[in-house]
């Protein structure tokens, strides 16, 4: 189920503006890869290019290659909708569908595949996904209630349950804890640890401690100067990154002596 991702010479544009330049990396399967870097350095943009969510913005486009399991995501015959069904995403702010119950929120992705599900089958998917997201015990008695009635941390775990209900190959997380309190954050971090046995996880975070806690490998993005495109400065195992980075600018950023 889990797949690795090979990125080569990826340039990402908003219209004529080059936002991210020349990224090369290999994201390992069944591991957590974290991206850190200052605001505006392009790490979220890069993340969104991994499941073709980048091009949702008018004028946005990509040059270069992203290959998942031998299959190029940006090949001419590849449907972005199919890509997104394989590569799930969790956003910065929890975004359950406001008009749907908890139950329907979890199943939203499965229902898109248009195949009719038996009630028992649907129940099983909901329970499994909510259990994987460590939310089952909190919501099992109110599955019919609206998803918006949950706390922020619970909503975010509901979004994770929704994303993994379709059993994607890769799970992208764009600062999934930045809108959450420390307790919810720690719940989500535990969850990331558990999920990596089944999924390839890529996470963008502003919190370097979080990157150090949850990830196996870390990429550091930076801007050469304001107005210049962002680029990947260093990509290494997290342990090495936080103890003995190759690049002086990585060390400066991690130790807080930035700029």
């Amino acid at each position, binding site marked *: 189920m889990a797949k690795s991702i090979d990125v080569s010479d990826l340039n990402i544009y908003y219209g004529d503006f080059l936002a991210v330049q020349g990224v090369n990396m290999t994201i390992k399967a069944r591991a957590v890869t974290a991206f850190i870097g200052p605001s505006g350095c392009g790490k979220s943009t890069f993340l969104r290019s991994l*499941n073709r*969510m980048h091009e*949702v913005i*008018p004028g946005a486009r990509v040059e270069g290659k992203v290959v998942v399991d031998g299959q190029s995501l940006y090949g001419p015959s590849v449907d972005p*909708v*199919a*890509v*997104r*069904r*394989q590569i*799930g*995403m969790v*956003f910065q*702010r929890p*975004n*359950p*569908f*406001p*008009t*749907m119950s908890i139950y329907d929120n979890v199943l*939203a*992705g499965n229902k*898109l595949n248009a195949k009719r599900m038996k009630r028992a089958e649907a129940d099983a998917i909901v329970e499994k996904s909510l259990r994987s997201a460590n939310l089952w015990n909190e919501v099992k008695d109110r599955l019919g209630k*609206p*998803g*918006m*009635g949950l706390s922020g941390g619970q909503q975010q775990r509901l*979004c994770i349950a*929704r*994303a993994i209900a*379709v059993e994607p190959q890769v799970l992208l997380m764009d600062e999934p804890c930045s809108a959450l309190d420390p307790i919810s954050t720690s719940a989500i971090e535990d969850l990331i640890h558990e999920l990596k046995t089944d999924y390839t996880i890529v996470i963008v975070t502003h919190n370097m401690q979080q990157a150090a806690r949850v990830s196996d490998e870390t990429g550091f993005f930076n801007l050469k100067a304001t107005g210049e495109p962002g680029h990947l400065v260093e990509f290494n195992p997290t342990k090495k990154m936080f103890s003995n980075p190759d690049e002086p600018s990585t060390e400066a950023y991690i130790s807080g002596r930035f700029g």
Partner: protein
Amino acid sequence: MSSTTKEKPLAQEAKPRVVTSVGDRVFAGLTLGASLIILLALASVFIFLLVKGLPGFTKAADVYGPRASSFFGYVSPLLGGTLIAAVIALIIAVPLAWGIALVISHYAPRFIAVPVAYLVDLLAAVPSVVFGLWGVIVLAPQMVPVFEFLNTYLGFIPIFGGDDDVVSKSGRTILTAGVVLAIMILPIITAITREVFSRTPRLNQEAALALGATRWEMMRLTVFPYGRSGMVSATMLGLGRALGETMAVAMVLSLGGWNVNLLGPGNSSIAANIASKYKERSEDLLSVLIATGLVLFLLTFLVNFTARWIVGRSERKMASA
């Protein structure tokens, strides 16, 4: 002991210090005045209809002319005509308006969406007399072949049925009036639905897309549920406008009695009937006409309250979440 002595002067000081500025007071007065004027206008219209119209309910049958023998018999075909024209208008305008709104808010690139939105708004600025003229002179003759088609192929439905000679030769029927009304209510429905569609939170739309929704599935998952109350209230506003529209309907329709067949002459609406008859200046007829106006007033009130209730209900449902 010391605390009580301390509190006292504080409380005294707080009391007279109510901060008000002249600007605040003037503004509060103006807004209050404006809202009272609306209430006053509505109340005075209602009282006028009640006072002048009540005698009309019991006027002798010879006042109405030959077709009806009681007030109820007089007003119900008119009410029926009003509703039928409005419903035809809604059936045509609502899907069209929602479609246009979707194109403007989600499908078309900006350089097309902006002028299209502007053109639709411009449609609202065309006077209803102009729509009426256009309906009579341009649209009505064009409708005749359409009527014949409907009569030939959908004649098994009673509203399109009947022999060939039932079909109006001038095209001036309630169906034509409904089409004209549809064009007239298109702008308001489009404008409101466009607004609610474009306010769908970006986050929810991205959530749907990231799950692998196609653009249409994304709309079904996020845009429609989010905009539902707005879509309903837009429709109801359009209905309200269609019910009350006078000039275009009066001009398009050739006056006649009640006719179930949409393709034949006849039928009228309350508003159009008032407009075409009030000049006859008989006191009795006038009070009858005002009474029909009262019926229309109550109908539109009912429609609007229903709309509010529906909208409020779905909003309460969202809020209780």
